[in-house]
């Protein structure tokens, strides 16, 4: 469903041009659980942002579900993002003045979904992520793990096929981090495509497929074979169209 061909992303920092992504060619299929690993500055977050349509490549083509999205306008990208991408961030990025449920509701509000329908989905999401008794709490009244669960619930509120997580456990203790990973893996188990950026090898090893990056280039692309998580595993390597 995601196909990168020769994707380049360069930044100009002062007089220098930094190549954050060097001709990345990549395919990700529906239902894959992928981790992107590498040292800081290796371009893994940039790759995730380009996948999530937050960032635009300077060269190369990006096909999403068979459609070339490289040339879309900002607003078109926003709409695609709304429907297809769910973001989970290291620092949660919850809106501090809104309650947990208002945060979860945000993407649906932006999409203009009816309040009745929003309510229905909200009740389900709160139940799914064990947040019923925290619905009216503000982020400052929630623990880190609860914040990240709110963030994941928010990412899932539009039911996107792809979940993109940038260091989702980076700001959590080990135990809570494992809980959060379990939640993400459950999404994968339900057929979602999950892409996790991490520098923690243990977190990365959970994934079925691991990309390693150095200096903006993908240096290895390994598929784990010993475990078969997920119930709706699709054909590997299928180029979704």
């Amino acid at each position, binding site marked *: 469903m995601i196909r990168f061909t020769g994707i380049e992303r360069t930044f100009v920092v002062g007089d220098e041009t930094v190549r954050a992504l060097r001709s990345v060619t990549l395919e990700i299929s529906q239902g894959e659980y992928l981790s992107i690993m590498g040292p800081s500055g290796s371009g893994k977050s940039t790759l995730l*942002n380009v996948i999530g349509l937050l960032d635009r490549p300077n060269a190369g083509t990006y096909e999403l579900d068979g459609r070339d999205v490289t040339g879309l306008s*900002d*607003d078109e990208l*926003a709409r695609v993002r709304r429907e297809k*991408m769910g973001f989970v961030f290291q620092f949660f*990025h919850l809106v501090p003045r809104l309650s947990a449920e208002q945060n979860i509701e945000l993407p649906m509000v*932006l999409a203009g979904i009816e309040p009745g329908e929003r309510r229905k989905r909200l009740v389900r999401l709160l139940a799914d992520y064990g947040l019923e008794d925290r619905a009216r709490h503000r982020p400052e009244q929630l623990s880190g793990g609860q914040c990240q669960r709110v963030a994941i619930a928010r990412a899932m509120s539009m039911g996107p096929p792809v979940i993109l997580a940038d260091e989702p456990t980076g700001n959590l203790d080990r135990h809570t981090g494992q809980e959060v990973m379990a939640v993400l893996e459950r999404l994968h188990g339900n057929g979602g495509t999950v892409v996790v950026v991490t520098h923690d090898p243990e977190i990365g090893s959970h994934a079925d497929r691991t990309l390693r990056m150095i200096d903006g280039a993908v240096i290895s692309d390994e598929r784990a074979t010993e475990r078969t998580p997920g119930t709706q595993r699709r054909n590997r390597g299928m180029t979704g169209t």
Partner: protein
Amino acid sequence: MRLADLLDFAWQVVRGYRTRTLLILLAMGIGVAAVVAVTSLGEGARLYVVNQFGSLGTNLVIVLPGRSETAGAMPGVLVGKTPRDLTLDDAIALKRSHAVRRIAPLVIGVGDMHVGSRVRETPVLGSTAELMGIRGMEVALGRFLPEGDPRQIVPVCVIGAKMAGELFGTRPVLGEWVRIGDRRFRVIGVMARQGESMGFNTDEIVIVPLAAAQALFNTEALFRILVEAKSREQIPYARDDVEEIIRLRHEGERDVTVITQDAVLATFDRILRALTLAVAGIAAISLAVAGILIMNVMLIAVTQRRREIGLLKALGATGVQIRMAFLTEAVLLSVGGAAVGLAVGQAVRYAAVQLYPAIPFQAPWWALVAAPATAVITAVLFTLAPARRAAMLDPVQALSRR
């Protein structure tokens, strides 16, 4: 994004940053309140003047003997003629005009009024029963001059409240006889206190029937004739009719001056309106200042809320939605500020009314519409640039910066 959600989102922001919201409400409120208060004062002054003219009587046309020309001498002067007097017959003839409701001829003089051993020099006004209605006078005790043939000399008089007090003290006034000059009059009424009304203090005069005054001062000539038109629209017709009737009666000579209250009033009205507009304009500058404050605050908000904006974009907000979020916030703030300002402005007006009950302070409707509208429009205009900046933010940078 639905409108209700947009409003709700902006409302959360407004509630979330209380101090900021209060400061903007204050700035906007002061601007709107200034406009409302200042125009109230101006409009109050205007209405006060209009009412003062109104106390002359409504729909009034005043006929004076003689004609003043702005240039050149009167032909009458050249040939050695003086203008004809206005007479009672002239006045009665004016009733023939369809545009005229009623008339009151006036004779004015000064006489000594004797009550027992007390003497007081007093202005004496000779007129008819219609004067009361035309001038809007009120009688406190007894009644006004009797109706009837104005040529008939009836020895009665109506005296001003102050006169009654000075000459009679606490003794009963009605039915007493007074002597003015060499004639005796019976007091049939006392005027209510009205005070000064366009240079004429009705508290200190004596009003006698027209014919009596003519006899007293030994003159046929009227001081002037007050003519009341049937309605405001009829005033020009009444004026034309009056001029024409007098001209015909005076052998084709235009030798009277006809003043309409309207013309004088309109001039004052224009001056005071212009004055009110000018001060309102000055007050409106504070609204512009409030607009700049909003712009400043919004620019800070865009910087402060970079991450939130980045997040909204990541969640699929379009540029238009980000812009609308900021503009809605500006509208909410300015509408709130305008409401505060209107309330404060009305409070100032109320206070002014308590201090000076005589002046009808009242904000004109255009100020009540324009002040809040200006507040909202400036707020939106000054938020366009910050909102645009927010919409243009790069989501990756906005999210990564801390």
